[in-house]
Structure formats: C-alpha cells, structure tokens
C-alpha cells in the first residue's frame, strides 16, 4: 500500500521502522524529545522510545555532535537533528576532523556510522543567519556522504539507506520542501506516493524528474522544484526541458549528469547555495572535463549570488534561483 506523504512524514517513517528493529539507533539533538525535532522527523518518538533513546540536549552542538561521533565509534548509530545548516559553524570541527576522518586515519579499524539531519535554505524571510544552504561547505569534506532528497519517496528511501550505511551521512532537507506546518502548504511536487514497506534509494544516482529533449535543467533540494516550474512554463513555449535531481552530492553521479546533458546538449545548473566554489561549478566540470563537445551552448548557472541572504521579501525573492529566472535563461539558450 502506498499513500501520499510529505517529506517529513516519509523520513520519519523510515527512522521509526529502523529504530523499532535496531537498538543501536538513537536520536539526539535540541528539542527532539518534546518537539520531535524542528522538522518533526522524530515526532512522537519521545513517548514511544523514551528519554534513553530520544535524548534532548543542551544548546551545545560541539559537545553533543562530538558525543554522537564517539557513540558511533563505540557501536551505536546516532541520528542527530541539527535543525539549520547555518549552525554548522559551532560544530564544524566534529564534521571536518572527526566523523569524516576517523575511519581513514585508523585504516578502517574504527567506523563512524552516524546520520546528521540538517535543514537548509531560505525563501521565508529568515535573513542571513537562518536561510543558507551551505551544502557545498559540507560536501567538500572527504569522508562524508551528503544526500539531499527533494521528494517524499526519496526522503524515505534515502533515510533507510543512511541508517544502514556504516559511514557518516549528512542528510539534508530544504526547509521549504519538508512539508512542515510553519513553512505553509507543502509544494505539490515534494509530495509523492510512498510505499508503507521499507525500501532504499541508493546514494550517488541522479533522478530524471522530468523527461525532455531541448535542454537539461539540473537542481537539488528546492531548486529541483523551481526547475519543474520552469519546465512547465517552457513547455508553453514549445521548449522541452529535462529536469535532473542530483539527490546526492557525495558521492556525485558524474556519469548520470554527463549522460543527461549529452542527451540535450544544453545545461542550466540551479543551486540555492552561493554561486562561487560550489555545486554548480562542480556539475559543469563533470561534463566539460569529460567532453566539452557535447554542449551546443555555454553552460549557465542560476544560483544565489555571493552575498548574505537579505531579509526583506523584495530583496530575498530577487536573489533566489526561482523558476522565472531559470525559464528566461533557458529561452535564451534554446533560441
């Protein structure tokens, strides 16, 4: 049986299923016991699993994420709710130097299976310290897997995969896609049919979210949905746009990206993270390094510019990589 679920409910279902069966999984973070985490991923878990397995922490990200790494080294699989990726500054050392490098530095003696759930992104007027994406900042670290589902089906399958992975996995969700109440009505394209039974979605494989033949629009997280909106607009002009959801940043499906772009010969990469030194450049590199002749036009990037995210709606909406911008760029490229 399948039902239509939001991403938050789908991810929660996977976590619940795994926790019911595996004693080594426990949840910790700020407000996980009473709130079920800021996105409801552990909603109701406090009552169900008790304070031993759903551990409310003080506001000490360096401390409790460092502890999670140690618990993982000692045979547990912690699941951490870090709420907003803007907060990685206060715990970055654990990500950068401990969780990501211990397996390597011990030549495989010590494994660090832990899942760090983080919300990303803006578009809801929360300004420069609560609206960032920063996924490139974590995907840059060797030894970390970074996944980024953009719909409920992938949210559940990737959560199962993360919880069964013997490595440190950062599981990102764009806040605007999660389907939690305070973000308003969930976007239709984030909802999907979700089977009740468990299933995994492998890391390192793109998804072709919409077939098309004239141009390839590539996105991740929220920008996938902007690409889909743009593709709807372009269809009205007779332009057939293929939409690619990266889904996983580390590992990155370079073969899949290349094949998708080769099919249309045109590419636009959209990313709500900052333009420079980020995913958009990496995606383009994975095409042009292999064979630049597959491109019939210079690649274009529609990303958040290299400025702090402004508060006022007029400014924030203007800098986000929204559908209208993507569609305009596509029309120019195809013309």
């Amino acid at each position, binding site marked *: 049986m399948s039902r239509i679920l939001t991403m938050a409910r789908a991810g929660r279902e996977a976590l619940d299923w795994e926790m019911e069966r595996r004693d080594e999984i426990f949840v910790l973070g700020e407000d996980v016991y009473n709130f079920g985490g800021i996105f409801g991923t552990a909603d109701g878990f406090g009552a169900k699993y008790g304070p031993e397995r759903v551990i409310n922490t003080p506001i000490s990200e360096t401390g409790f994420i460092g502890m999670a790494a140690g618990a993982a080294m000692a045979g547990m699989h912690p699941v951490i709710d870090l709420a907003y990726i803007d907060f990685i500054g206060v715990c970055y050392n654990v990500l950068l130097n401990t969780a990501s490098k211990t*397996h390597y530095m011990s*030549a495989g003696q010590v494994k660090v299976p832990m899942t760090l759930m983080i919300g990303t992104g803006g578009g809801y007027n929360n300004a420069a310290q609560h609206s960032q994406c920063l996924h490139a900042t974590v995907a840059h670290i060797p030894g970390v897997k970074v996944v980024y589902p953009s719909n409920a089906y992938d949210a559940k399958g990737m959560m199962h995969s993360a919880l069964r992975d013997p490595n440190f996995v950062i599981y990102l969700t764009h806040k605007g896609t999660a389907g939690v109440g305070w973000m308003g009505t969930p976007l239709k394209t984030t909802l999907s049919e979700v089977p009740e039974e468990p299933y995994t979605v492998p890391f390192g494989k793109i998804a072709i979210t919409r077939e098309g033949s004239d141009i390839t629009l590539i996105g991740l997280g929220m920008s996938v949905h902007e690409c889909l909106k743009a593709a709807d607009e372009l269809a009205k002009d007779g332009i057939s746009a293929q939409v690619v959801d990266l889904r996983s940043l580390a590992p990155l499906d370079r073969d899949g990206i290349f094949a998708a772009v080769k099919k249309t010969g045109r590419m636009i990469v959209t990313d709500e993270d900052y333009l420079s030194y980020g995913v958009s450049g990496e995606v383009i590199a994975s095409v042009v390094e292999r064979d630049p002749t597959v491109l019939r036009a210079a690649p274009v990037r529609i990303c958040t510019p290299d400025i702090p995210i402004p508060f006022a709606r007029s400014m924030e909406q203007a800098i986000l990589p929204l559908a209208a911008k993507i569609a305009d760029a596509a029309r120019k490229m195809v013309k």
Partner: protein
Amino acid sequence: MPLSPELRRNMYRQMVRSRAFDDAMIGLYWVGKTPIFAFANGPLPGELHCSNGAEPVGAGVCAALDADDMITADHRPHHVAIARGVDLNAMTAELLGKKTGLSQGKGGHMHIYDTRVNFASSGIIAEGMGPAAGMALARRLQKRPGVALTFLGDGAANQGAFHEVLNLVGVMKLPFIAVVQDNEWGVSTSKKESTAVARNSDRASAYGMAGEYVDSNDADDIYLAAERALARARSGGGGTILELRTARLAGHFMGDQQAYIPEQMKQIDPNPLYRAKLIREGVLSEAEAAAIDAAATAEVAEAMRLAQEAPYPDPSEAFDHVFAGADA
C-alpha cells in the same frame, strides 16, 4: 587494587618503556634534519610531540583501568598509548609511516588507534572530549560496563568543547574522566597567561562533578587519584576532572627550543625520582631496576628494527579506507 609492589614495578616499567620509545624517536627524528631543519625531512617526518616528563600520567592512570574502559588521547599520545598496552611494534611502524603500522601509514604519531585496547587519539585540541563522552553514553545504552577517559593538556581546558562536554557529562551523569595534564604550557603560552583559574579541577563545580588536583607527578599519587575517580564513575557518581601536574621536558614539539621558559620554571624529570623511590622503599633493587630499563630499551630497539625494515604503503593505498564498505 591496593598499591602493591607488583603494581608499582609495573608502573615503573611502563614509564621507562614510554621514555625509551620517545628517546628512540627523538634520535631518529633528527636523522636528515640537520643542519637544515624541516618537518618533512628524514625517516621520521612530520611534527613530533614527545611525552618525556609525562610518563607518570600514562602509567598511573592506565594501571587503574579495566579492559572495558575507553581512552581518547590528544596530539601527545605516546605515554598513554604505551601504558594502555597499544601494540608497540605496530605503533612504532605507524610513526615511521609503514604498511605494518596501526593505521597502515595513514595516521602518524598524532592519530593512534588500537581498537584491541579501546584506544583512539586526535590531533585537534580537546577533540577527544566529545567522542569519549559519547563512548561512555554508548556503553550506558548498551548496558555494558566501561568508563571513558580523555587525556588532554591544560591548554585544552580553554576550548569550547571542554566546557560543552563537561556540562553534558554533568547533566547525564556519565562515567567519564577528563585527565587534564597540567604541564604549565600550551605551546609557548603559559597556564598563568591563558587560564583564569589556577586549577582546572576547580572548574568541576560548574559542571556538577568532582574535581581533583594531584600536585606531584608521581605515579603512586596519580594511580590512587585515578582509582578514586574511576570508583565514582563506576558507581554512578558521574564525571571527574582529574588534573595532574606533570612535565613537558622535550618541548611542545621537536624543534621547540623552549627559550621562553624561565630558569625558575625548569621542570624536573619524574622517572629517576620514581626509580629512586621504589629502590628506597625496597620495591625494586638496583639490579631489578636496571633490568627493567634494559628490557625497555631492547624492546623498543627491536620495534624500531622491525619498523625500519617494513615496507612503505603503496601510493595507491591512499585511496583506501575513505569510506567503510556497505558490507563492512
């Protein structure tokens, strides 16, 4: 366990094994690094932070541990690792970057892992705090025994991780001991210059845990204090900041001339003092002490010979172990 003659002889043995190891490493370190000093030169490259002077800390604390207990150490891990029983041959090979090393040449001297004896270390200051507390939490959740200890310097007690984790340990009443090694220096900055209180053990009151300071750098005193902290942890009494005055006789790292240390702050070598004490108290004869010294030197020489003869890892191995396999 009481302070038996056998236990004291064993602590002395661990102290001289550690010293023999560091002295051998210092000897090798300078090969290829004179007249021009550069970290990368010679058969023992990189930074090298030796434990000379801190041996009583490793010997005294580790003598009080059970096999279930867990350790995270810092960038100066040799004395703790050796006293804990980390494989000396594999550790020696690791320092030389050999395939037969604990981490097959991927770690080096700051990153010593030996899961056989629950030992790990990190080169980032105070970064052992969170993982050690997490190991203690894991054992609680697994309903298995074991106290987690992290060894760090007094300079590390000013890191945010130190304070965040102590608060968590206090809240959760975890079986955890922060072994603060007060060697008076954080690289070239003195404790007086850097730390608002004279004793970090006094900070324990802020975290609802016990604090104890041992002023002697004597293995007997350290052992007894460690036993008190361990008993507290094992009986559900929570964490301890165990601060131990010790010494840093070989500088922050090799190449540190320690010109910044004034004459009146020169530190005393604890090893000959402990040796003399055990002889004076009839625990060891001069001949027995000499035999322990000689055995340690021979053991390290053999480890060094094996390590020097061992192959370097193939360059292609750099790509192994980035991730654990799905079937692992």
